[in-house]
């Protein structure tokens, strides 16, 4: 599925483009179609606004003072003096920086390892013929169906056995084998022409050099898409870091935010400011890579 791009520049798709084709003979039907499309737009617009309300409400609350937000909804609605006090409190507190650091390190290292190892495996499966290939392929397919979240208890015990609990590695290592990445890379490499590799091989290049200097430069789009998706997934993972890390200095954003509700009590503005701070890097990522994220999600059916 998803053999076409989603989103941007989809001008005149669907019926809105069908109407002009029937121009003349079907003038009245064209008008009714146009009216219908306008109604569709209005209905969808209303839903979109409803969908924005929770985020806007969190933003509005985060921009009031704790004293105001403690008074409840009417006070927050009536408040007209926005303040960054909650954000400043958070930034001075220091916890959020630890959480950011933990999330950035674990996400970035996981992305790097997943892309490198996943693309290498995908390359082998796409281009090489070797004994046991079918078995490897079948194992990988089976691996896709293994629900990783259910493995949190044995993974915890395994990490404990090798003394890796309460380290960044405990968050990174279990998330590296994203089997879907291997298939995405294999599929992409399958579509690359073999001629360039053959030319390189005639020049005496080995597999590693071909992979590094021929294949990787051609794979920037798929590397970017998989990289962003992996980053978002690792950044948002709560279950694994929640149990393998208990040292507050090593907590990732989701685990840190999970402690906020209890420790901030009635400081609603601070709570909402931290929820927004935790989401901010992903919102920025989305604004920069909208198309890639949307295409990647549509193309892989990757769901947390």
């Amino acid at each position, binding site marked *: 599925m998803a053999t076409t791009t989603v989103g941007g520049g989809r001008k005149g798709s669907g019926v809105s483009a069908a109407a002009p084709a029937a121009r003349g003979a079907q003038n009245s039907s064209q008008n009714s179609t146009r009216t219908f499309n306008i109604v569709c737009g209005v209905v969808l617009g209303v839903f979109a606004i409803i969908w924005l309300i929770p985020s806007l409400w969190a933003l509005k609350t985060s921009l009031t003072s704790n004293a105001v937000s403690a008074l409840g909804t009417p006070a927050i609605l009536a408040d007209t003096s926005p303040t960054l006090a909650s954000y400043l409190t958070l930034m001075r507190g220091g916890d959020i920086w630890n959480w950011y650091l933990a999330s950035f390190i674990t996400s970035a290292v996981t992305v790097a390892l997943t892309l490198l190892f996943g693309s290498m495996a995908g390359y082998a499966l796409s281009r090489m013929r070797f004994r046991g290939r079918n078995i490897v392929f079948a194992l990988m397919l089976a691996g896709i169906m293994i*629900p990783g979240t259910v493995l949190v208890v044995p993974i915890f015990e395994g990490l404990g056995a090798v003394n890796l609990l309460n380290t960044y590695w405990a968050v990174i290592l279990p998330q590296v084998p994203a089997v879907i990445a291997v298939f995405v890379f294999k599929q992409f490499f399958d579509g690359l022409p073999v001629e360039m590799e053959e030319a390189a091989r005639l020049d005496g290049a080995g597999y590693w050099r071909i992979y590094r200097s021929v294949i990787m430069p051609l794979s920037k789009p798929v590397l970017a898409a998989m990289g962003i998706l992996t980053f978002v997934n690792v950044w948002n993972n709560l279950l694994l870091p929640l149990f393998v890390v208990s040292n507050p200095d090593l907590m990732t954003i989701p685990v840190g935010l999970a402690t906020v509700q209890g420790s901030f009590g009635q400081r609603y503005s601070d709570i909402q400011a931290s929820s927004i701070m935790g989401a901010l890097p992903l919102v920025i990522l989305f604004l920069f890579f909208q198309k890639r994220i949307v295409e990647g999600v549509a193309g892989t059916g990757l769901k947390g």
Partner: protein
Amino acid sequence: MSTPTIAPLRGPAVSSKQQGGVGFPENKPAWLFLAPFGIFFVLFLVAPTVYMFISSFFNTSIAKSGLGSFAGFANYQEMLTKPEFWSSMWHTLQFTLYTTPPLVVLAFVFAVLANRVRRGQWFFRLAFFVPFILPSATISLIWVFIFAPTNGLFAQLQTWLGNAIPTPVLADPSSAMIGIAVATIWWTLGFNFILYLAGLQDIPRELYEAAAIDGTTPWQQIRYITIPLLSRTTSLVVVLQIIASLKVFDQVYLMTSGGPGTSTQVALGLITNTAFTDFRSGAASAASVLLFIVILAIAIIRQLLERNQERTA
């Protein structure tokens, strides 16, 4: 998905025949290329799965190293006769039933509507899709605040509508799961929305043009062209939704911790509680195996369905 695609990124459509010939000359480089990923695959997917099965037959505890004493089927027997286990399974099912229909129907409707609107696509994507990439912790903090008893946004809304004693959604056992479901629908709808939008683009425009010439109403076009041709996307969305629902943990843990009482305790919550609060990882493994089997069964059914569709397509 057995064959995941990032289709728009696909290189030039050249079919690559596997090169190499007799006697597998590429054995060594192939295994070297596979090894790094393979090691992680074995260590963090295969080994934990095997260990989960083994320890489910032992009195394993996370407080002690080693497997502990042999328990036979006692862990399974305990789980299968324990009311908490069945109630957590029921709550998981309840969550699935509350979230799947709205997530499928609303996403479909929104995508069909969005496909008819020429302008403002970016706005709809922003509104519907951005929540999906946010951390569950952010979602939960926002919705717990909205559902705050007495003076939260939702309680205030009820008061304005004339309900003097607004329901404290998350604090009431009869409505807590509905509150979690609402937050989840808001959070993940964008995913299905995007899948449906992609599916809509695969429908040839000529079909609509022909239908328009035949004088069909837009509603007839949706009923007889869009819905049938999106059936593949719908089955994908439904299965992904069910699998994700069975694995629900974050929202429940963050919004209600399974409460009030155990009214929203779900399967993965019971498993982690058994392992990390009661220290009984053997028993937790037995429950994990049972959940694992259910999810695997659905994943296999999905593979078979997909293969079937590919054959008939």
